[in-house]
């Protein structure tokens, strides 16, 4: 076992030993299914002292941006033929299960796509709902009293992608703009996916002065399924009046995903001048 693996395992073991309530550990956090295999699996582990009742379901949804540039999940209840939905033909087995304390179980995902499915990537979301034991409300033996409490449940939604044939991805950046408001740099842009697969990568923005010094920057993971118009903010110190460059770069580098599921694509960059009066 590598040292790289031992540390997260040790940390997870410590955390698992101290968790007192509901919820299960889920891995991986994004599922990719190859058309040649048509199956994948998700591992659940219950680190708690109580059994966890787990329900599995799927739906079609993808990230979009709202009017404030925040990334939110859009749920499509009835996807049509133009949507790249795999929710109707990826099934999870089992759909209901109980994971005993300190046990693990595997959820199998089986894809049965339509026969004439064109090449490309198709998407769905997997919902893992976990319900633990009822939390007792103390003092209920006093029947003259009114006792109240709410039990917590959790639902985790992760992404699934089914890839068939030749898949390719990329992005196009447009409408890059920014402003400095107080101690923040705000950056907006329009990012449109190219190709027939989601663009999963990292976005890096920076504000560079005339000497080439970086005065503000941010870096964040991003997934572009159709079009995003995200707003990002980064802390910036006092800026002297003058000309600056706002730079944006998207790459397909992601440390949280296995290299074999990353669809490589050339880095895409854009920049605009920003004048500070």
């Amino acid at each position: 076992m590598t040292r790289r693996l031992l540390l997260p395992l040790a940390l997870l073991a410590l955390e698992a030993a101290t968790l007192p309530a509901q919820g299960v550990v889920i891995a991986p956090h994004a599922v990719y299914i190859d058309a040649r295999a048509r199956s994948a699996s998700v591992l659940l582990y219950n680190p708690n002292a109580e059994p966890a009742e787990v329900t599995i379901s799927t739906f079609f949804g993808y990230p979009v941006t709202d009017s404030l540039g925040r990334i939110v999940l859009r749920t499509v209840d009835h996807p049509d033929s133009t949507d790249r939905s795999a929710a109707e033909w990826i099934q999870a087995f089992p759909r209901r299960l109980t994971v005993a304390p300190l046990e693990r179980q595997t959820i199998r995902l089986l894809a049965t796509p339509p026969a004439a499915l064109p090449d490309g990537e198709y998407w769905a979301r997997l919902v893992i709902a976990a319900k633990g034991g009822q939390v007792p409300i103390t003092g209920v033996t006093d029947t003259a009293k009114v006792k109240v409490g709410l039990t917590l449940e959790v639902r985790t939604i992760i992404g699934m992608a089914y890839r068939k044939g030749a898949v390719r991805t990329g992005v196009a950046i447009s409408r890059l703009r920014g402003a400095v408001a107080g101690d923040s740099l705000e950056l907006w842009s329009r990012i449109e996916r190219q190709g027939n697969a989601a663009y999963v990568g990292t976005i890096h923005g920076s504000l560079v002065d005339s000497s080439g010094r970086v005065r503000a920057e941010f870096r964040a993971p991003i997934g572009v399924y159709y079009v995003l118009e995200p707003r990002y903010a980064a802390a910036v110190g006092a800026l002297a009046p003058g000309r600056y460059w706002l730079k944006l770069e998207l790459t397909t580098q992601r440390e949280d995903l296995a290299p074999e599921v990353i669809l490589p694509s050339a880095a895409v960059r854009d920049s605009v001048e920003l004048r500070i009066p």
Partner: protein
Amino acid sequence: MHARPLSPLLALALLGVALLQAQRPITVQGVRSLTFGAVLPGVPLAISRTDAVNSGQYNLTGQNNHQVQLTFTLPNVMNGPAGATMPITFAGNDAGYSSSQAIGSQVAFDPKQAFLATLNGNGRGSVFIGATARPAPMQRAGSYTGTLTLTVAYFP
């Protein structure tokens, strides 16, 4: 599907296979229920999200600095003995998110709206929630419970 008892370390070692592929598993843990204890009929009782004993708390783990969407499913009433119910309400600042996982350092949000949270540099965060129980003047005695569901969506 087959299941068998495992030692925690063995189970975690098996999870390590997935860890190698995906770096870190994700968890959403309900660690403390929202509890009002005893209430007086006819007297509303509010529990603050900063109440370290009675507020509800969920802990999140995932990828470092990743954004997650938080959505609550909130009950309108709690169910009690013999079909009795008790209203419960949630105000616009009854939920809070803390990337440091400290109850004293929260960003308030409306639990009736979706909220975008960013996990900290260690891939962690905590969600806290409070509410107000509104017992009627003739509220039937007994124990009242409900379920509060937090949905966490990860964006790959």
